Every structure is written in C-alpha cells, then in structure tokens.
C-alpha cells in the first residue's frame, strides 16, 4: 500500500514542468531523460556531452538536496529480484530510445506540445504498464 498524495504529487509535477520549461528557455531543447541519457556514451558523446552529464548529475544529486532541505529521508522501495530488475532495465532502456521518448519526453513535453506521436506513445506505454502489473500481481503473483 502507498498513501494517496495528490497535493505533493501535483507540487512535484509543477517542479518537473518548471524544469522542462527552463530547459526549453535555456537550451532550446525538450527535457527527455531517455534522449539525454542515451547520448552519454560513444559514439554519441559529442556536442553537448558536458551539459547532458551535468543534467544527469543533478538528477542523481537531487535526493541529497531534498534531504538537506526537508530533513526527511527519500522514500523508495525497489524490488530485490535482480533478474527481474535487469530485464526491466533492458526493456525500459531499449524501449524508450526505440520509441523516441519516455515518461518525460513523450509524457510531459509531448503532451504539452499536443504531439500526436507522443499521445500514441503514452497510450501504448500506459496500457503495457497496466497489463504488466495486472499479470505480475494478479495472474502470476497473486
């Protein structure tokens, strides 16, 4: 069980949206994490590499800033089934680049731009997510 947190979630969403808007204002680019992360390695680590690495470093350091600001620990429950997590990682990585975006690029930025491609992508990954959790929890896991 997790607690329903509409206000905190909405507030967090506003911060995410703000970051995406400022990214467009500063760099003229869409804040798509899969696009940023997938071009950290050769042969794609060319122009803008330092900026992309700095953005990812900011993501990684964010929990420290959160803990410093609020004094609260970051809540996180990750599956310890390592085979499952390896398969999940491969699928998330491959699928997000193959489909030109993830929850940030398609989900936030694409919806905000009313992109037809993003709308299709969101519909598909939401459905796939619902179906996967249903199968894992209610058909297999029980």
């Amino acid at each position, binding site marked *: *069980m*997790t*607690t329903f947190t509409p206000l905190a979630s*909405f507030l*967090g*969403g*506003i*911060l995410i*949206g703000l*970051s995406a808007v*400022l*990214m*467009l204002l*500063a*760099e*003229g*680019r*869409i804040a798509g994490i899969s696009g940023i*992360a*997938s071009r950290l390695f050769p042969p794609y680590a060319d122009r*803008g590499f*330092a*900026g992309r690495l700095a*953005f990812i*470093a900011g*993501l990684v*350091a*964010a*929990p420290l*800033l*959160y803990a410093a600001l609020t004094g609260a620990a*970051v809540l996180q*429950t*990750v599956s310890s089934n390592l085979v*499952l*997590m390896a398969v999940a*990682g*491969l699928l*998330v*990585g*491959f*699928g997000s*680049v*193959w*489909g*030109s975006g993830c*929850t940030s690029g398609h*989900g936030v930025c694409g*919806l905000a731009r009313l992109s037809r*491609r993003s709308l*299709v992508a969101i519909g*598909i*990954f939401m*459905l*796939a997510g*619902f179906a*996967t*959790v*249903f199968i894992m*929890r209610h058909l297999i896991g029980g």
Partner: protein
Amino acid sequence: MSILVNLGLGLLFGLGLIVSGMSNPAKVLNFLDLFGTFDPSLAFVMGGAVMVAFLGFRLVLMREAPLMAPRFQLPTRTDIDARLLVGPALFGIGWGLGGFCPGPAFTALGLAAPGTLVFIPAMLAGMWAARLIAERRNG
C-alpha cells in the same frame, strides 16, 4: 555556464520526481495496479507537469531563440511508424516490471538499492543498443 544551468535543471527535475513520489517504484507500481492497491497520485504529477509545460512552452516559444543556443530544436515528426508502437510497448512492460522509468532510476542511484544498481546499467545498455540498431537500419 551551460554545465551549471544543466546541473540546476537536473536538480530541479529530480526534486520534482522525489516530492511527487514518482521516484518510488512502489508508488509507480500501485499507480499501474488498477485492480489492486491502486494509488492515483501519479496522475496528479502528470497534471501539474503538463499544465506548467503547456503554458510555459507557449511563453518561451514566443522568443526568437533560446538563451544559450542558436535556435529551438523541437521534434518535427508527426508520422506513426512501427517503432512508435513497439518502443513504448517494450518500455511500458519494463516500467510495469521494475517501477522505474529513466529519470526516477537516476534519482534512486544514491540510495544504492541492489535493484537500482542492476537496473541502471541494464537500462543504459538497452538505450545504447537501441541507438546502434536504429542507426544501422537507417544508414
């Protein structure tokens, strides 16, 4: 300068993921569990983020150019091809298995849960493979 700005943007994005609960796989999986322990919180993340981005993008795009780059670089494609159907399907399955999408996985790195430490290298390998294969097919 660009490095500092990007670091700040990453921090802000990451804070948003943490405050919203998006960085907790348990919350993501409950959001996806419509017929079980459904927690609709993440719909509010999307609501807040899209609302701000929808208005903000319009304001920003009234400018001739961004502040630190010569021009805006927005996606221009509108076609629905096979890759747009297959990619998000695979992504969605992985998201439903692990509860992580790419951004939250990075914010989880610091807590160093074994699942995270396996997920991230696998994710980066998957991303890299997808880029290589896509390019080989196109070129």
